[in-house]
């Protein structure tokens, strides 16, 4: 991956501030908001633990496309849709407990692979504009998802459970109770430390994914993805099938997002059929960016730093908003403002860095040309 050489000439302190502007701003905000909120430490730790187990998988799903130079994968929403379709089926079939979650994973995997493959093909046609294309693709696929779930299920796809079917006989209800699979992973090995439930199995699954990502980077495919991320042309000359590698990275990301959504929803215990997936991409990307990741570089520590900072902000902002302005609603607005704002800020910062980097490169070439032409003049050689 290209190293950011934007501020080579700047002093290290300024360079650090520019590179980690987003996490620094968030740390300051959180440091101010926690005492204002008046929440106890125990409550905060419990909430962060819950969100750590709930959201980590989804954010980790974003790492592979960043490695492949495709930026933040807004099309993880497609994976979330696949996960929800799996959950609709197990609810209809009344498969409950851990087998239900595992079956949902199994059913949704081929759907996620297919959607990831489609997304990969589309993104290959939009090289350099993957993020906005992914964003729009998510909207487009949301339309198809709604068509399938609202009109296809019960009509073409057999669904018979009256608990999830709309009274008219086709289409799925707006909210589905997942009470039969609620927290089955989290409570599989019950462990409480200081009154805080530790979701051992979920954390182990997340740890396994982290190990997988570290291992994956060292595999042949992982190396190929990294080379593609650095330079498509160099990768092509090296004999790597760039298009295939990019598709594979999106497929992996989509499948992981699908699993992430199932883990997320089993923790919550209910599902918003038509809206549950739509914000997944934005919140996961915002959390990753808050952790200090950029469009071109993201790693596992970014995931966890971002998750803790972003979700601490989520937890404390309504209370802090009420303490400051007398209205909890303000804190809610602040959450949304922060989510979108942090993405905009990070993207703008990244674009600015790139521009400065290009400018530096241009200046360097100009200086080199100047020096070369001067030396040619003095030696009487050919002009550059």
């Amino acid at each position, binding site marked *: 991956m290209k190293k950011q050489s934007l501020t080579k000439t700047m002093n290290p302190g300024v360079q650090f501030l520019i590179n980690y502007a987003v996490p620094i701003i968030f740390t300051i905000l959180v440091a101010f908001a926690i005492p204002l909120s008046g929440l106890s430490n125990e409550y905060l730790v419990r909430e962060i633990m819950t969100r750590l187990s709930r959201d980590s998988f989804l954010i980790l799903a974003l790492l592979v496309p960043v490695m492949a130079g495709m930026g933040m994968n807004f099309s993880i929403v497609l994976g979330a849709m696949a996960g929800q379709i799996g959950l609709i089926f197990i609810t209809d*079939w*009344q*498969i*409950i407990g851990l*087998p*239900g979650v595992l*079956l949902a994973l*199994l*059913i949704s995997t081929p759907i996620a692979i297919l959607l990831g493959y489609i997304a990969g093909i589309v993104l290959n046609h939009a090289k350099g504009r993957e993020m906005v294309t992914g964003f729009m693709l998510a909207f487009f696929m949301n339309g198809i998802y709604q068509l399938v779930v609202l009109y296809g299920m019960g009509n073409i796809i057999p669904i018979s459970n009256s608990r999830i079917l709309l009274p008219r006989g086709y289409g799925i209800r707006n909210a589905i109770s997942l009470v039969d699979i609620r927290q089955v992973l989290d409570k599989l090995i019950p462990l409480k430390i200081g009154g805080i439930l530790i979701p051992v199995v979920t954390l182990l699954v997340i740890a396994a994914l982290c190990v997988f990502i570290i291992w994956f980077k060292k595999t042949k495919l992982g190396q190929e993805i990294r080379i593609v991320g650095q330079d498509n042309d160099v990768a092509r000359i090296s004999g790597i099938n760039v298009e295939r590698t990019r598709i594979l990275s999106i497929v992996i990301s989509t499948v992981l997002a699908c699993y992430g959504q199932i883990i997320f929803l089993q923790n919550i215990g209910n599902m918003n059929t038509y809206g549950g997936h739509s914000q997944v991409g934005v919140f996961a990307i915002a959390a990753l960016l808050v952790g200090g990741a950029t469009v071109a570089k993201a790693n596992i520590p970014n995931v966890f730093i971002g998750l803790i900072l972003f979700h601490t902000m989520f937890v404390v902002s309504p209370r802090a908003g009420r303490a400051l302005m007398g209205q909890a609603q303000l804190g809610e607005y602040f959450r949304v403002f922060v989510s979108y704002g942090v993405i905009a800020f990070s993207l703008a910062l990244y674009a600015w860095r790139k521009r400065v980097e290009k400018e530096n490169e241009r200046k360097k070439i100009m200086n080199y040309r100047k020096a070369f032409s001067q030396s040619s003049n003095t030696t009487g050689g050919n002009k550059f």
Partner: protein
Amino acid sequence: MRKRIIIRTALVAALILIGIFLYAIGKEHKVLIDNRDISVGDITYSASTTYVVWVDNQEIGVIKKGERNAAIAIGISHKIVVEEIKSNVLTGEKHEKRFRLKTNESTTINIPAMINNANEWINKTN
């Protein structure tokens, strides 16, 4: 190439089998438990007392004479245990039966028939 196709086919088949297995072991079944009189041919098994009922080691609760309760059982093989209550005290007299349910089956269990070992103690429906 052929080896690759065989491996992929085997993998897909294995995943389908795992799916079927998960479906079978995770399927929810409704179990209705009656503590009511039941007539089988000329014989009538009468409900005479109150019972505490467990299905798959989960306590369902107390079922008084003439009452019905419902339980949710998961999977294929199940066990029902009933214990008599007399004068609000558990007598320690337990009756246990095992039963199996297919994926699409629900069942109604009659306690008087069950404790008398009548064949009609269980009535499975699709």
